[in-house]
């Protein structure tokens, strides 16, 4: 028996019920608010979070995810390999490991990097808890509040909260079909020079960018690396999708072009094997790597040895490239299905990218359509996408959307795109009536076009950023 405090309120039914001091009393709002760090105050709005939460409901066809299709991985392989890890290595698998990662997993990492033309030593590597941790560690290591980070516009939505939580000032550089506009980058760097501010690093996903789906051209890769060298500026090259190419020739990574001087390379097993393993890595110049290592030790001591030993087994006993080949086949087909569906169901006022790899297509709608609101409407028809604002930190992106094709079945892609197309047409027609313009005609009612995936010229809206991808500058 404990001695109760005086009940704080009337108890029902004559029972004496004590209420301990309320853990979450309403007055505590103000108290907690005073305790939160300033960096928490700039996090994403609750409205957008609430909206995204609905996309997870089972009846919703979600093109909002960014998931690889793990159902393609043979379950029997997984259980057999895990059993072997358990039988041979239980004690180590269950133990802490070194912060920089087990030697066993560095072999597979070097193999993956070699497949993309990169040569590294085990000591160049830090094994991390997913690629996401690299972004966090790089910010932790380099960013003081107010420091400038350069990113693409749009940028990986998952990087935005990391930048925000370290209070970075993010400058986003527009893209076209050849990736980040280097001419715009140079203008921005000069503007920052004039303001006496030097960016700490440039964050880029050069291949099959998330979310835009575009790939940085070879020429721009060279120029970007040249700028990094000239200005002694670090580049964080985030390359989760490089192996998932569906057409065209592979391009050298920035890390290769740079000679490992100013590029921090981020790799991951998430898209070529499994995100559930939570294993990524980075390769970086040694002084930077040492600092990242310290940061990682503080964050989580080490990444899962169980996962690391599993990866080792998997690379020893299975053909990882064959599995990547299988994934590539599935995703290529799904990309093509989505491109066809977009051509069939999206109105002619819309434009979108045609990715040569990766998981995403980025679409842009006329500038009077707000894709956050459109998502609310689309959810009534049980279909979801990521509203463009999630990929910008400066309020842009209101008319854009990210569509994922990797984690959705063929039929769901067709049906999902059809439903989105329908709600867009509904809004176009309504807008037409409100402004007295002709009701918007849908592309579906017109003869099929020859090159469905190339953006329509009519769609070039003033102030557009990523799309339409017609300029060849840089």
């Amino acid at each position, binding site marked *: 028996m404990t001695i109760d405090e005086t009940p704080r309120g009337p108890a029902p039914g004559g029972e004496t019920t004590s*209420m301990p001091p309320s853990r979450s*009393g309403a007055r505590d*709002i*103000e108290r907690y608010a005073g305790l939160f760090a300033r960096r928490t105050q700039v996090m994403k*709005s609750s409205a957008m*979070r*609430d909206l995204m939460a609905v996309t997870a409901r089972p009846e919703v066809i979600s093109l909002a995810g960014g998931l690889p299709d793990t159902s393609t991985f043979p379950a029997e392989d997984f259980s057999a390999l895990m059993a072997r890890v358990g039988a041979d290595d239980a004690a180590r698998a269950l133990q802490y490991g070194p912060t920089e990662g087990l030697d066993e997993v560095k072999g597979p990492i070097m193999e993956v990097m070699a497949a993309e033309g990169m040569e590294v030593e085990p000591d160049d590597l830090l094994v991390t808890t997913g690629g996401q941790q690299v972004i966090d560690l790089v910010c932790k290591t380099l960013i003081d509040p107010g420091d400038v980070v350069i990113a693409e516009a749009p940028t990986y939505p998952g990087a935005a909260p990391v930048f925000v939580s370290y209070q970075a000032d993010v400058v986003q550089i527009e893209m076209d079909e050849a990736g980040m506009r280097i001419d715009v980058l140079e203008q921005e760097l000069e503007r920052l020079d004039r303001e006496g501010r030097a960016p700490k690093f440039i964050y880029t996903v050069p291949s099959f960018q998330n979310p835009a789906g575009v790939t940085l051209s070879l020429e721009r890769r060279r120029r970007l690396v040249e700028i990094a060298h000239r200005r002694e500026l670090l580049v964080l090259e985030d390359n989760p999708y490089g192996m998932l190419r569906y057409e065209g020739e592979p391009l050298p990574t920035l890390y290769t072009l740079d000679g490992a001087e100013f590029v921090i390379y981020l790799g991951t097993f998430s898209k070529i094997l499994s995100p559930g393993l939570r294993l990524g890595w980075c390769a970086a110049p040694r002084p930077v790597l040492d600092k990242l290592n310290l940061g990682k030790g503080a964050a989580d001591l080490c990444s899962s040895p169980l996962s690391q030993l599993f990866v080792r087994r998997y690379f020893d006993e299975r053909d990882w490239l064959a599995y990547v080949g299988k994934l590539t086949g599935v995703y290529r087909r799904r990309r093509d299905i989505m491109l066809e569906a977009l051509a069939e169901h999206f109105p002619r006022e819309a434009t979108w990218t045609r990715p040569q790899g990766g998981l995403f297509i980025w679409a842009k709608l006329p500038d*009077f359509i707000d894709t956050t609101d459109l998502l609310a409407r689309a959810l009534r028809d049980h279909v979801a996408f990521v509203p463009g604002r999630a990929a910008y930190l400066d309020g842009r992106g209101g008319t854009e959307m990210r569509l994922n094709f990797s984690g959705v079945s063929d039929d769901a892609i067709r049906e999902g795109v059809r439903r989105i197309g329908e709600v867009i047409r509904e809004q176009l027609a*309504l807008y037409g009536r409100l402004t007295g313009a002709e009701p918007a005609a849908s592309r579906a009612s017109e003869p099929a076009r020859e090159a469905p995936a190339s953006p329509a010229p009519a769609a070039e809206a003033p102030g557009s950023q990523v799309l339409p991808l017609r300029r060849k500058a840089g």
Partner: protein
Amino acid sequence: MKVAVLKGGDSLERQVSLRSGARVEDALDRLGHEVVAVDVGPDLVDRLGAERPDVAFVALHGRGGEDGTVQELLELLGIPYTASGPSACMRCMDKVVAKHALRDAGVPTPDFYAFSQAAFEELGAARALPAIEERLDFPIVVKPAGQGSALGIKFAATADDVPGAIVAAFSYDTKVLLERHVAGRDLAVSVLEGPDGPEALPIVEAVPQDESFYDFESRYEIGRTRFICPADLPDAVAERARELALESYRVLGCYGFARVDLMLDSASGELTVLEANVIPGLTDTSLLPLAAEAAGIGFGALIARVLELAVARAPA
């Protein structure tokens, strides 16, 4: 008692509802009740049939839970439930209906015009927009009639912004509201039924931290908006705000509790009622619990009272 806490559902306010529900469950548990948590979905009737709760605590927000749908079902099943009945829910969930009712009863509410999608599609309502723009002055606030959160609310600074704002609002509902914008202070008056009928709780003022005037989204975010309770108002103004809230509560036919949102016009000093919420948020950052606490009513006591009222209303 065995209490079913209805929460979640598929409205856009699902997340807030889950947080409200969890906090209510916790309080009911401390009060010694048997709690059954129900995430509302297609199996709702079956679950209630199987569980046979003595009373249902409705912690749903938005479409489905706050618009009378669930309340009608509970009436049908004969399960006593918390807060307002179907008709008050329908009136309050639809801001247009609520504003008409308030205006008819002489409760001041900002001037407004409302349209259904059909009006634009079948009756050429677009032709009437210039006249509205003239009467309301810019900026005009455009809102979906039936959305409880800040989603879909847009400010049209010029005539060019109006069509896009209307299209956005129609994303949430088949009816939209164009309302005169009131520049001023943002007040919330919670009403809780006591032994002597409805009582207005201390007034909460929401003060945005960053001075971006139009940032509705930050309104109820910890750290981005400061809540002052009781609001620092002249006695006469506070008294008038409480009167208006009670009058709105009565006119709209609310029961148990509700939160009435008002604006205090900085220029004219005039108070107007924007809307009433029949199931206001009950999370640890929500305004009704904050106001109750300021009145000396802890969260447990608040929940206990709302539950008693549900039982008291139930037919014998």
